[in-house]
């Protein structure tokens, strides 16, 4: 069956491939003017950056292939790189491959280049950072390299723009199909040729690269093929194993490096006095076991401060803006359900998204600076020892640190962790770090219940309780990492084979591009989920809309008037009616909340939370806090009828909490033990829908976010239960 002729011109697919840290993304930006579209590869968290390129030959698309050291996939990034280049990942293989090599690290780049040559697709070599090489006293000849590899080669500098027009011309010309391959023994060549013809007979591409990949990979890579093809390849692998002490894959790696040594002869010439190794000098201090750790601690504290306090005025601005918008719209819209939906559901939901942006933007900027300067690799190096104790990689530290401010950027920062399982563990434990949204709850409970507690060893009891809540979160995170690494996500502690790239001054454009694409991805991918869930929560707390009956209303009015009558000085009539109206509005709000879906749920979950020391009122607060934890304070304000505007420092709310008594026993409801139990619950519970949305985005499905909800809330329940019950037994109730 022949395919119908396509009415549309096929898009010419150009893949930009190279090692990590070779300035590939900077080159991508130079070629496309940074108009990248960022998405994830299907089912992965690996970013897919593409941009349209205008060529004379027709529409073209430039694909930024994830940086990799090798085409043999050992990490998610490398797997995606391999699949994009060979067309296993959605659609056709690349029509043209541009391999980017760092002129200052020629040999390592050439290794990947040789593997790419084996794919036998049209290719171009872009020798990047020639300016940096020149500054280091090295002249690298692109022409000679190109001649030896049999493909067009262009010297470029992605930082200065040097050589970009020449590269575009080479792209127009379409590159050349490589013919030069690393020499291997006749016996191995024979094996490869047999594998290639078997693949071609099976309807495959049959390039040397494909054959080499399948012969040197584990048998699982061949299992995806048709049975007879897999069998014949398995036989070839078995034959290869008898041909010498080394495996086929190892012989191939060695052969490529032998060839690299030949290619590189005469390509690099000293063009001046050698420049002293600046990065080496910096590293002597920065990676020192003591000084380096101290510097790292200062850097993270600085970063934390910046994310936490630097964003405060901006967050205030966002909140003020949302408040202004609600007021402005409130004045324009007619009263009714639609107005409430727009103001308290939609606008508040959009506000819930926008409120994270200041922190995210500051954090993304800091991460981009740390990554691009080369410091991130050093941080991973320094923290490798402590992190490897719980089976994680040094790179997992930063996301956890960030999560003390907010788990959303923390989860996004977990992308720097390479191994997929370790990245997942990191994302799953990040929400245990006490984020800034838990702080108001700790503040409210501690100031209400422990303000008069005796200092311990000269330290305030409140401060100690606060610190133990933070420590509890850290302990839970490390315990969970340890548990996950031994059970469902069992994997050996990731090996550390970490390149320490030369230090480099980050470019403004590179950093801005990074921040922009990351922020946009958050808005477009997590945003809609957060808005939708905010609307659902608003509806649950507002409906069914039950009005206060006449008698109850009259009672409220009378109480308010009586209170006014009791005042030492007579209250003017307009003030009195305003106070009465406010009291009625309060009572109505309270009544509506209590009888809403959320209120009903609060009653419904009371049996479940009663063993933790919580009644249905706290239950409503807990449900409300699923929009965002800090909502607990305003929800409690509504439930206890002191108004939603009372903050965590409010004496009114504090007193309302202390006044509350258990209707059955007449004893105070809010004892210090209940307060501790509530804080423990907040430390451990997964209550933040925005975090759930971020987890869904990063893991590409609902499985892990749901597992996280069950696990964290289960753990929170057990811990609070233990706290309250043991505390009661010890007589603290």
């Amino acid at each position: 069956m022949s395919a119908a002729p396509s009415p549309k011109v096929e898009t010419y697919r150009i893949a930009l491939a190279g090692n990590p840290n070779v300035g590939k993304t900077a080159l991508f930006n130079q070629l496309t003017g940074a108009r990248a579209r960022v998405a994830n590869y299907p089912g992965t968290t690996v970013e897919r950056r593409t941009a349209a390129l205008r060529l004379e030959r027709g529409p073209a698309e430039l694909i930024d292939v994830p940086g990799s050291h090798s085409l043999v996939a050992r990490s998610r990034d490398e797997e995606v790189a391999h699949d994009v280049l060979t067309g296993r990942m959605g659609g056709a293989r690349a029509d043209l491959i541009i391999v980017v090599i760092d002129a200052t690290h020629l040999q390592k780049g050439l290794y990947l280049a040789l593997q790419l040559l084996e794919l036998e697709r049209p290719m171009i070599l872009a020798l990047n950072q020639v300016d940096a090489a020149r500054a280091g006293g090295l002249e690298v000849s692109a022409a000679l390299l190109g001649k030896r590899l049999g493909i067009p080669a262009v010297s470029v500098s992605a930082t200065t723009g040097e050589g970009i027009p020449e590269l575009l011309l080479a792209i127009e010309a379409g590159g050349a199909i490589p013919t030069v391959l690393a020499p291997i023994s006749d016996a191995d060549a024979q094996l490869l040729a047999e594998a290639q013809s078997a693949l071609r007979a099976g309807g495959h591409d049959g390039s040397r690269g494909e054959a080499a990949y399948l012969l040197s990979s584990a048998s699982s890579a061949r299992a995806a093929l048709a049975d007879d093809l897999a069998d014949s390849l398995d036989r070839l692998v078995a034959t290869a194993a008898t041909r010498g002490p080394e495996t086929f894959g190892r012989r191939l790696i060695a052969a490529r490096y032998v060839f690299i040594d030949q290619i590189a002869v005469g390509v690099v010439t000293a063009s001046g006095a050698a420049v002293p190794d600046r990065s080496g000098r910096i590293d002597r201090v920065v990676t020192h076991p003591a000084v380096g750790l101290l510097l790292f601690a200062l850097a993270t504290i600085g970063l934390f401060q910046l994310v936490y306090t630097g964003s405060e005025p901006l967050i205030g601005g966002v909140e003020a803006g949302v408040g202004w918008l609600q007021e402005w719209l409130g004045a324009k819209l007619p009263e009714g359900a639609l107005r409430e939906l727009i103001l308290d559901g939609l606008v508040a939901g959009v506000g819930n998204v926008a409120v994270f942006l200041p922190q995210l933007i500051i954090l993304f900027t800091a991460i981009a600076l740390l990554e691009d300067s080369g410091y991130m690799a050093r941080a991973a190096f320094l923290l490798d020892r402590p992190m490897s104790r719980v089976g994680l990689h040094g790179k997992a530290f930063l996301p956890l640190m960030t999560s003390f401010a907010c788990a959303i950027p923390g989860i996004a920062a977990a992308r720097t962790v390479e191994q997929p399982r370790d990245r997942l563990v990191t994302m799953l434990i990040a929400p245990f770090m006490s984020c800034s949204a838990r702080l108001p709850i700790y503040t409210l409970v501690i100031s209400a219940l422990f303000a008069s507690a005796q200092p311990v060893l000269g330290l305030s009891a409140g401060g100690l309780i606060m610190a133990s809540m933070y420590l509890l979160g850290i302990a839970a995170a490390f315990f969970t990492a340890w548990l996950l690494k031994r059970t469902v996500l069992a994997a050996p502690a990731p090996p550390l084979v970490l390149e320490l790239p030369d230090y480099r001054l980050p470019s403004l454009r590179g950093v801005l591009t990074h921040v922009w694409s990351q922020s946009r991805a958050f808005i477009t991918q997590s945003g809609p989920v957060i808005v939708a869930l905010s609307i659902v929560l608003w509806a649950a707390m507002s409906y069914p809309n039950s009005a206060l009956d006449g008698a109850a209303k009259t009672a409220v009015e009378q109480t308010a008037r009586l209170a006014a009558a009791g005042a030492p000085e007579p209250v003017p009539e307009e003030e009195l009616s305003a106070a009465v109206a406010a009291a009625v509005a309060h009572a109505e709000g309270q009544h509506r909340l209590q009888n809403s879906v959320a209120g009903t749920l609060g009653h419904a979950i009371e049996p479940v939370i009663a063993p933790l020391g919580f009644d249905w009122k706290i239950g409503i607060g807990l449900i409300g806090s699923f929009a965002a934890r800090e909502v607990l304070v305003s929800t409690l304000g509504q439930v206890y009828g002191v108004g939603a505007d009372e903050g965590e420092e409010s004496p009114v709310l504090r007193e309302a909490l202390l006044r509350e008594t258990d209707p059955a026993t007449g004893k105070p409801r809010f004892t210090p033990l209940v307060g501790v139990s509530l804080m423990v619950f907040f430390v451990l519970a997964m209550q933040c829908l925005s975090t759930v949305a971020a987890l869904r985005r990063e893991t590409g499905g609902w499985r892990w976010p749901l597992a996280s909800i069950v696990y964290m809330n289960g753990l929170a329940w057990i811990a609070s239960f233990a706290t309250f019950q043991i505390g009661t037994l010890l007589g603290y109730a």
Partner: protein
Amino acid sequence: MTLADLLPDSPARVARVVPFDTLSERLMEMGLVAGAEVMVISPSRLGSPMQIRVRGYKLSLRRQEAQRVELAS
């Protein structure tokens, strides 16, 4: 002798990387093949990873990974 025992600033040549598994292949792909020149920049201190130079770039490995790299005498 393995790379883990090599003294700083004294160049040596790789003999082979053992055992035959994917991690060893990864180390080889990073340039640690037979005949490659390696040098330790900073050894493992207090259990921290070590830093080596191979093929003109800097690589960081844990001691246990460096023990896989046998050196030519």
